[in-house]
């Protein structure tokens, strides 16, 4: 280890260069460097924890890294075993606790998702809102992603809609509404090369899948929520560019079913 007893003090170079730190300072800084890099090393290598000892080992530096906003797992959260099985379930790990630096794994969650709120009068509001780009767009995406990720897990899928429901309803000026999380499926390269508009259109109605749907309303201080069965397909949400609904009359002809 770089102990001050073993290493010679750093000499000034050519009489011009400033000297390095004193031996005591080097020892102190080396210790802090070691502690910091050790904490990072644990966070980079121990994101899947099995034994209580490994969990305990990870936990202490985890607090430190959490304070600094660096406590993210660098992996995608999804591993394909040699048997072909996905492990663990892609739905269990929070997206926002992952660094997402890998950009894609070609997973069902690696596509755009949208939140749509519509009431009985036919009014509807969509997030990300039309015109949101860059960081703004991505923040709405993260919420929609999280809702899609939790969808289908019986005891957790309503947590996020219930927590955000009051704000969503207030934002849309609605008393009660249907909340949907919509997934926009991607085209395969062959589809993008096709001359068939139903295949070629990236916003075609057939590409929209509802992954979560619930009736939502407020009673007093409580947000009430009734989960509905998700539909495999439904009409398109608001077109971000034009503000019209794809698949609705007056929209792009290519979007017609």
């Amino acid at each position, binding site marked *: 280890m770089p102990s001050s007893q073993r290493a010679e003090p750093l000499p000034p170079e050519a009489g011009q260069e400033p000297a390095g730190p004193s031996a005591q300072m080097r020892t102190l800084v080396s210790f802090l460097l070691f502690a910091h890099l050790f904490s990072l090393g644990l966070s980079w290598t121990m994101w899947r924890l099995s034994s209580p000892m490994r969990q305990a080992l990870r936990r202490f530096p985890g607090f430190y890294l*959490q304070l600094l*906003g660096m406590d993210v797992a660098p992996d995608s959260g999804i*591993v394909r075993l040699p048997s072909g099985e996905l492990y663990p379930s892609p739905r269990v790990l929070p997206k926002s606790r992952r660094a997402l630096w890998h950009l894609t*794994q070609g997973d069902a969650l690696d596509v755009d998702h949208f939140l749509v709120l519509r009431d009985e009068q036919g009014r509807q509001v969509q997030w990300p809102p039309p015109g949101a780009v860059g960081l703004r767009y991505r923040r709405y995406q*993260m919420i929609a992603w999280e809702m899609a990720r939790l969808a289908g897990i019986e005891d957790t899928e309503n947590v996020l809609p219930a927590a955000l429901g009051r704000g969503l309803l207030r934002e849309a000026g609605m008393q009660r509404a249907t909340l949907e999380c919509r997934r926009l499926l991607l085209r395969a390269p062959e589809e993008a090369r096709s001359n068939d508009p139903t295949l070629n259109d990236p916003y075609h109605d057939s590409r929209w899948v509802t992954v979560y749907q619930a009736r939502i309303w407020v009673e007093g201080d409580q947000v009430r929520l009734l989960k509905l069965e998700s539909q495999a397909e439904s009409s398109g949400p608001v077109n971000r560019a034009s503000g019209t609904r794809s698949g609705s009359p007056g929209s792009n002809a290519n979007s017609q079913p």
Partner: protein
Amino acid sequence: MLRLLIRGVTDYFQQMSLAVGQGWNRFWYQPSSPLPLVALRIAVGLLALYYVASFSPDLTRWFGPEGWFAPPAGAGQADPVGQWLDARFPLGETLYRFDDVAQRPFPPLYRLSYLTYASSDWELWLMHAAGLLVLVLFILGWKTRWTSVLALVVVLAYVHRAPLLNAQLEPVLAMLMFYLALSPCGVAWSVDSWLAGRKQSAEPSSAPMPPKRWGATVTLRLIQVHLTVLYALTVLVQLSGGGTGGMVWWTGEAMWWIVARPETALVSADWLAHHPLLMDLWTYFVILFQMAFVVLVWVRPMRGLMLALAMLFWISIALATGLVTYSLLMLAGLLAFVPAECFTGNCPVPAAE
């Protein structure tokens, strides 16, 4: 004979220990110019300013007392969703069975954000404006020792206020801001240095380079090591495969599935679909560049090439993903690898180093 052998082994370990110690000290403490850190202060500061300013259109929607992440009445939690996620996935733990943790109490959280203390919209806007002001002062280099720490606090306040909104950008931004807060990043191109120059002499200082400091080396090395590990982790995760789509980084399809997202890509997927070979090459360039960068950026003669390729790499990632701010931040981080002389227009020739 045995004694000689023991002495030889002992000498070997003593010399090895000495060499390792000297190598460690040279790597971390050899004084170096803080100019790369100064450039980082300006570049990362501008991106941090944009990051915080980008909350402005949705500030009250996200964080206001009536906003999406407002705590329910009497709940006493700043961010119920974030708290819920943290409770179930504390500190990176992967918990597969929800019933195991249904009764688990919230763990202690270290997600501190002054934004949680805003009890009205105008208080929130006041805090927001103050945060932006701190970041502007940090970029300008006014009282940099203090504003660098305050700028870190500002950025972390937004990162911690609603962790649900975080993605690629935030951990890298927090990392760079943290290291800059430890560094002498205000010694040049700053109000501080201008004021110091005025105090010392009526004439402006003619010295192009601020004096070398060992503190600059420590923070530059931390940024270099941290960034290199991020590249390594990224490529390892990409190559580890997974996902319902299969091993897309091995098959060459990955860049297609990124570009095919019509809402985010800045280049035409239709055009790329007609050039499958280009799609494959792009995917393999991403993988091979990252693998090469991890090693070759530490080889002095190769560093210039790696930095040039990194420009190409991050521009292509920005075009494909639409993650422009993240790509710019990663490009800004590469300033830590640029020789200090380059900032004064005297880039050393690799062979001469």
